[in-house]
């Protein structure tokens, strides 16, 4: 009696678990069905490496947006990663318990702020600063990078903190016993030992940055031309979909789905890289 009930229960849970997977499958399938025809029509090479995006005139080249995505994300990593790492090292190695119990939830709170609020803050605070002190329209790759750097902090901090905390305490004790200072222990024992976890944290953070849409639409300027400097406006793959989906129809709409395919592939590669690095350990 009990075993049938248990079996039924486990079957039910299996089916529910399957439903989340099927959501992934349905979404992926849908994006591909909608997006692949237009890639075929325009030509794979013309789509990925085309320099001109003007859907009403029949031009569907997303290369400037791929470049925009890469630049904005790299910028976010350059600004955000050192800060995040310093923060996680501080939390695990230096912070008194009281400070830690205060800072950790505060960082979690950072993850809970809606992206539109980040965008709005960026638009009213960061953008005018850049316009006034560095020139250009203010809406720029730099503004996008700064906003994204803040947004990826919680992801990177919490995962690299966990990987630092999970190190056996023997490592630290051994290093200190051998005469290494606290700082020497951190940079030549603890960080190398937690390397894979930290790498995974960075990659997941970058994945988050690439996928972000709302905040970036508001501060990036969304120009379709290839950006010439970090003070130029640019467009990313996500913002291309976000800004044009409202009225798009026909080939234009399909081209936006095709943009989604490219995005999906990039994110899949990043996530599998993170998984691989963690497993390898």
């Amino acid at each position: 009696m009990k075993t049938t009930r248990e079996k039924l229960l486990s079957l039910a849970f299996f089916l529910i678990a399957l439903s989340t997977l099927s959501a992934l499958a349905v979404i992926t399938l849908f994006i591909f069905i909608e997006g692949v025809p237009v890639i075929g029509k325009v030509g794979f090479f013309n789509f990925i490496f085309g320099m001109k995006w003007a859907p009403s005139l029949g031009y569907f080249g997303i290369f400037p947006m791929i470049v925009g995505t890469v630049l904005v994300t790299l910028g976010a990593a350059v600004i955000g990663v050192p800060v995040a790492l310093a923060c996680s090292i501080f939390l695990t190695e230096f912070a008194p318990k009281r400070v830690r119990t205060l800072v950790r939830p505060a960082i979690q709170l950072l993850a809970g702020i809606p992206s539109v609020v980040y965008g709005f803050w960026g638009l009213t605070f960061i953008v005018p600063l850049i316009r006034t002190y560095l020139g250009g329209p203010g809406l720029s790759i730099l503004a996008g990078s700064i906003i994204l750097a803040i947004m990826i902090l919680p992801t990177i901090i919490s995962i690299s903190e966990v990987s630092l905390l999970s190190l056996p305490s023997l490592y630290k004790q051994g290093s200190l016993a051998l005469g290494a200072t606290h700082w020497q222990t951190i940079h030549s024992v603890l960080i190398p030992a937690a390397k894979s976890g930290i790498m995974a944290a960075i990659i997941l953070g970058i994945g988050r940055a690439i996928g972000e849409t709302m905040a970036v639409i508001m501060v990036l300027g969304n120009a379709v031309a290839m950006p010439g400097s970090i003070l130029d406006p640019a467009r990313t793959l996500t913002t291309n979909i976000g800004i044009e989906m409202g009225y798009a129809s026909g080939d234009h709409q399909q081209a936006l789905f095709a943009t989604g395919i490219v995005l999906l592939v990039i994110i899949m590669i990043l996530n599998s890289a993170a998984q691989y690095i963690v497993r390898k350990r």
Partner: protein
Amino acid sequence: MEHRVSNQKTKQKACRIVKIGLALLLAGLLSACGEKKEAALIVAGSTSVQPFAEALAEHYMVLHQEIEVDVQGGGSSAGVMSAKTNTADIGMSSRSLKEDELSLWHVEIARDGLAVIVNPKNNVTDLTLQQVRDIYSGTISNWSQLGGKDAKIHIIAREEGSGTRSAFESLVMDKQEISPRAIVQDSNGTVRQLVADDPNAIGFVSLGLVDVTVIALKLDGVAATRENVLNKTYNLSRPFIFITGKEPVGETKKFIDFVLSEEGKKILNDEGLVTFDTGGSQ
């Protein structure tokens, strides 16, 4: 090990979110099937008119619970066609009717003016249509070329597919392309906000949305005002037209009468359009 634990946790969380989403979706679908209205009125056509027609339909449906007004897009030509073939009760167009279309019953419900706006700090306040075109095509790139100070012009445009953008393209650009270097924003509000913040910016918005934070440029010496739109001396405007296959009767007529009534005009005015003092002009 701990990564995996935290990983699983986030997966579980994602799981839950997806499930809640599905539940909400189902609930939405079910409730949508709930009510049945007695009669349905289909309004289809220009995506520029669509949001205004939706606002009108919303108010109308509050007053007349028994009727469902269904507003669809498709574009001006599709709007004219659907009125002609009676696939829609009312067609919407945001361009003037062509000669062979004038035989259809039609009424201009309002005009949409387009204002070219700059920052109040900008001392350039009067441009020719040709100069605006040159700015947006990228030929003119510095305010000093227009008598202003020596600063790069930051051009702001709307996104591809937007009705305001296509209106600007047909009224100003004369088949030339808007420069790809233009900053793109997806609403009238954000364009106005950016121009209000940036002394070197230029943008275009619906006339009704011009306020004290920005300056609407004179074009060829004509100020961008409601009066000048109505007497047709200000050229950047387009008609919003309702079209029916034949003289409207019954529910169709009642809806059009509502649109042309003081109440309908007030809604359109509040949404930023220019309406006629005498109701519609046939």
